[in-house]
């Protein structure tokens, strides 16, 4: 089917915990998000079949919209093309589930080609196992061991400007080829070459006897020029092949998708590139996605996407590594109650054992939200040098600020999601806060590969949840002192007047979608865009309007004050109501004392459900009841 005839596009994202589906279709001449559905990812053992979760999500979507999507009789996963209101015209897939791809990087110089190679790799879920360049002073034996003992899946070779000197790079590549020739058993890495184009034929001749060779345009065709996109697209193909070879049954999904399984982060980068082109105040969009195994941050700086992907930071599979990275002390700054370090580690490892579970108590929820805040702060710290913007700890003026990942998008209240973004990013001035609960950012990014107009129109149609505008003045004000005098006029309603005190977070109770006029007067020492009086016409978001008088940089309270203040912030973010836990029954009622295992089971009915027989120790063959 020609791309011009594609109207309905089904996009799947295979995450570590959830498989999400989004259906983009043409409605009255405009592409928009029609429906989304999700199911548990089933790539991990014992199921080991990613297509099963995809099928379940599709069945769910079919029930929601009354349209058959699944191909129940044919060879494919989905009914394609669309016919008589059923099926879809195209299917695309992104993925972040599974072990990250291990990559060994080879280049000419650490400052140029290796740095460019590392930037290409940042667009995927990668673990770098090592690097090699001609300046490497290690003996050949150590170099070979560095390359092979890390068991890379891919060797990325960069280096040399197009038609520049090639002797040194060729000598290095011969050494790499010799190393590959030593692999007798085990997995042979594939080679991706994105260096001096004059060497393409040499590279193919050197490595083809051993492995598959992918080539892309030079990441650094000239000393003062970098081009990442061709190498990133080729890397996506390599990733698709890697996923196909990996356990988890991704092959069937990749076969059905018109672009294979693209790394989720590449979809996000692609969408941020589009969003950056839209007229909006500030530098450009900033998107953070906190997942179970991976986390990423993509920011558009003057039209160019900059990104950080961390395959060791997440709130599920990667909880222990994330806690190690952010440290328990930093995490505890966000907890109202005292939680011991050992308890945090216990929590981390239990969450890793069962990453799909969700916190059922407020204490547990606060631990995960605390980690999410610190993970985002860590991503911002990693990304900041690349932006070349802003000073100190303050966030440059990005907008909109978009949060993705269940820990952010499925907070108990939109106000809590807004607070988490404010705490983690600490924007200054007016911040446009949004959520991506349907994983649309990554989905639309791959849609752009097929039909760019669909991406643009679906983004304009507003598939994101607008949390609202947050007023975040720069400067400090003493706690409890008057900080922001707020006046909100809304049609047909009384004027809302409120004084926000220093150290307070206030969510104005305005119905989402209401057009309002807001006037904010700031106390001396505070400013927004250098001014102390701001007047704006705005539309209230899902969290209403947000006024953050906690100062920038945000100073977190200590000691007893911490519990009081964090609880007050949470209460404000929840719209003034804190959740009240139901009393938990006495443990003795629920479980027998350990010594009672031989006694009759008070929950015998439950045991019977699991069919547990007791055995006649004397008999050879006991009969089942």
């Amino acid at each position, binding site marked *: 089917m020609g791309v011009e005839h594609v109207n309905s596009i089904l996009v799947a994202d295979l995450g570590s915990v959830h498989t999400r589906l989004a259906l983009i279709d043409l409605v009255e001449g405009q592409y928009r998000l029609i429906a989304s559905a999700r199911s548990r990812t089933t790539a*991990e*053992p*014992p199921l*080991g079949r990613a297509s099963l979760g995809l099928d*379940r999500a599709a069945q769910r979507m079919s029930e929601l919209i009354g349209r058959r999507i699944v191909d129940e009789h044919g060879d494919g996963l989905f009914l394609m093309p669309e016919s008589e209101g059923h099926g879809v015209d195209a299917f695309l897939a992104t993925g972040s589930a*599974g072990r990250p791809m291990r990559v060994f990087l080879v280049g000419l110089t650490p400052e140029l080609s290796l740095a460019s190679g590392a930037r290409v790799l940042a667009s995927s879920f990668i673990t770098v196992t090592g690097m090699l360049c001609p300046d490497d002073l290690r003996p*050949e*034996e150590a170099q*070979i*061991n560095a390359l092979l003992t890390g068991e890379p899946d891919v060797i990325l070779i960069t280096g040399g400007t197009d038609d520049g000197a090639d002797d040194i790079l060729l000598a290095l590549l011969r050494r790499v080829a010799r190393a590959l020739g*030593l692999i*007798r*058993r*085990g997995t042979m890495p594939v080679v991706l070459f994105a260096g001096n184009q004059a060497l393409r034929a040499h590279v193919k001749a050197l490595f083809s006897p051993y492995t598959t060779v992918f080539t892309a345009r030079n990441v650094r065709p000239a000393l003062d020029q970098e081009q990442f996109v061709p190498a990133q697209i080729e890397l996506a193909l390599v990733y698709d092949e890697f996923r196909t070879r990996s356990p*988890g049954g991704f092959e069937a999904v990749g076969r059905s998708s018109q672009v294979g399984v693209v790394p989720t982060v590449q979809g996000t980068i692609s969408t941020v590139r589009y969003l950056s082109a839209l007229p909006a105040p500030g530098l450009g969009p900033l998107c953070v996605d906190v997942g179970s195994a991976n986390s990423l941050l993509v920011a558009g700086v003057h039209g160019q996407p900059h990104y950080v992907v961390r395959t060791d930071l997440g709130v599920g*599979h990667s909880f222990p590594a994330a806690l190690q990275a952010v440290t328990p002390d930093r995490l505890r700054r966000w907890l109202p109650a005292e939680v011991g370090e*050992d308890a945090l*580690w*216990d929590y*981390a*490892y*239990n969450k890793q*054992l*069962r990453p*799909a*579970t*969700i916190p*059922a*108590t407020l204490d*547990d*929820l606060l631990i995960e939200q605390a980690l999410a805040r610190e993970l985002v702060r860590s991503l911002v710290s990693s990304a900041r040098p690349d932006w070349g913007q802003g000073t100190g700890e303050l966030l440059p003026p990005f907008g909109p600020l978009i949060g993705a990942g269940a820990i952010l998008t*499925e*907070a*108990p*209240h939109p106000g809590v999601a807004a607070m988490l973004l404010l705490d983690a990013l600490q924007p200054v001035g007016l911040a446009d806060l949004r959520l991506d609960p349907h994983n649309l950012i990554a989905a639309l990014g791959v849609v752009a590969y097929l039909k760019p107009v669909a991406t643009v129109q679906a983004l304009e149609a507003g598939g994101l949840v607008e949390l609202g505008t947050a007023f975040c003045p720069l400067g400090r004000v003493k706690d409890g002192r008057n900080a922001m005098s707020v006046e909100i006029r809304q049609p047909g309603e009384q004027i809302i007047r409120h004084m926000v005190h220093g150290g307070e977070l206030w969510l104005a109770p305005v119905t989402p979608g209401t057009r309002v006029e807001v006037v904010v007067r700031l106390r001396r020492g505070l400013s927004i865009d250098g001014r102390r009086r701001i007047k704006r016409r705005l539309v209230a978001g899902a969290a209403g309007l947000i006024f953050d008088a906690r100062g920038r940089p945000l100073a977190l309270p200590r000691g007893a004050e911490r519990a009081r203040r964090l609880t007050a912030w949470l209460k404000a973010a*929840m719209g003034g109501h804190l*959740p009240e836990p*139901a009393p*938990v029954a006495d*443990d003795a*009622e*629920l*479980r*027998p004392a*350990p010594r009672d*295992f031989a006694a009759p089971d008070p*929950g015998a009915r*439950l*045991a019977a*459900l*699991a*069919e*547990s*027989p*007791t*055995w006649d120790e004397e008999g*050879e*063959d*006991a009969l*089942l009841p």
Partner: protein
Amino acid sequence: MPYYPETSVIKGLARVTRERRLPPGVVHRRTATGPGAQVSAVTVVLQGDALREYHILDVARALRLRKAGPEQVADLITVAPDQRVRLGQELAARGRGKRAQTLLSPVDGEVVSVDDGQIIVQASERTVEVPAKIPGEVESVENDIVRISGVGAVMQCAWGNGRFFFGAYQFLPEEGFAALRTLDPTISPYRAKMIISPLPIERADLLLAQRQEAAGVVAPSMSASLREFVMGLTFPVILTEGFGRRQPTTLIYRLLHSNMGRQATFDAATPDHWRWERPEIMLPLPAGGTFPETPSVTRALAVGAGVRLTRAPWDGVLAEVVALPPTPQVIDNGLRTQCARVRLPNNREVLVPLANLELLG
């Protein structure tokens, strides 16, 4: 719309099929069984080599032939590619008697290349042997994957330290590990047996078990801070629930109690989301002429199902699903999520997120 929760197999009698594979980083050497073969829990079914670093050996330099080229030293090399060599084994030699010069292998390993006057040897850390871990029949052998089927009681657990034991077990007395302090290890009833502790364990308990020469320990939980210590122990440690002070899943301990005196396999596999092994205990049992069913891991949740609750405040509690509300519900902490209404053993009914339920397979 159906919901498919995680499934943990805790079953009094089931037919189980398990795949045995070599651990990551280990290359296949030999498959030591075939389809239809009867295997015991300790029968080795797969062998592999954990290969390590490469050693590049310059023959001319080792034999003090500074001016000799590759062709001249080729005749002095006494090994060939793919040949396994032992530490100290001769790889190349020149001359005889007192003036002889020899190049000896610096490691146990395998010659991977003899070229250009160089011998490259890849060190072999150790030979890895994978046992069947359950007694039964080999169903199939495919590349380096061996599928074995057996019958017995199965209890999937939460965590293990990577060790394995097949043998008898003994419950701790009421006083717990403290009662072991005064026992003489040579006549201790816990010697060479797995100790089953229904209470969370601590470092001192594990040291006592070690002193008693126990075969291993099964317990509901321990502090995560002990992970490194436990990984270093030579006997298996299996946690049925996880980390911290967690309550035991009653059913597991009842099954073990009701089968006291039998031998069991204790596979303390360290869980990895992308590997097939899960820590588990299996009690081989006679089928009694019946053909027990294989536990299903693809069942949808339904009213009446027996489930285990996996998160606080009811972690480890067994419950029964009494209703599946079609719309998301607000739970205690304010989260709005799909839930099941379950009946706890005290007959109280509570809402539990679907994500926090495990079906008992």
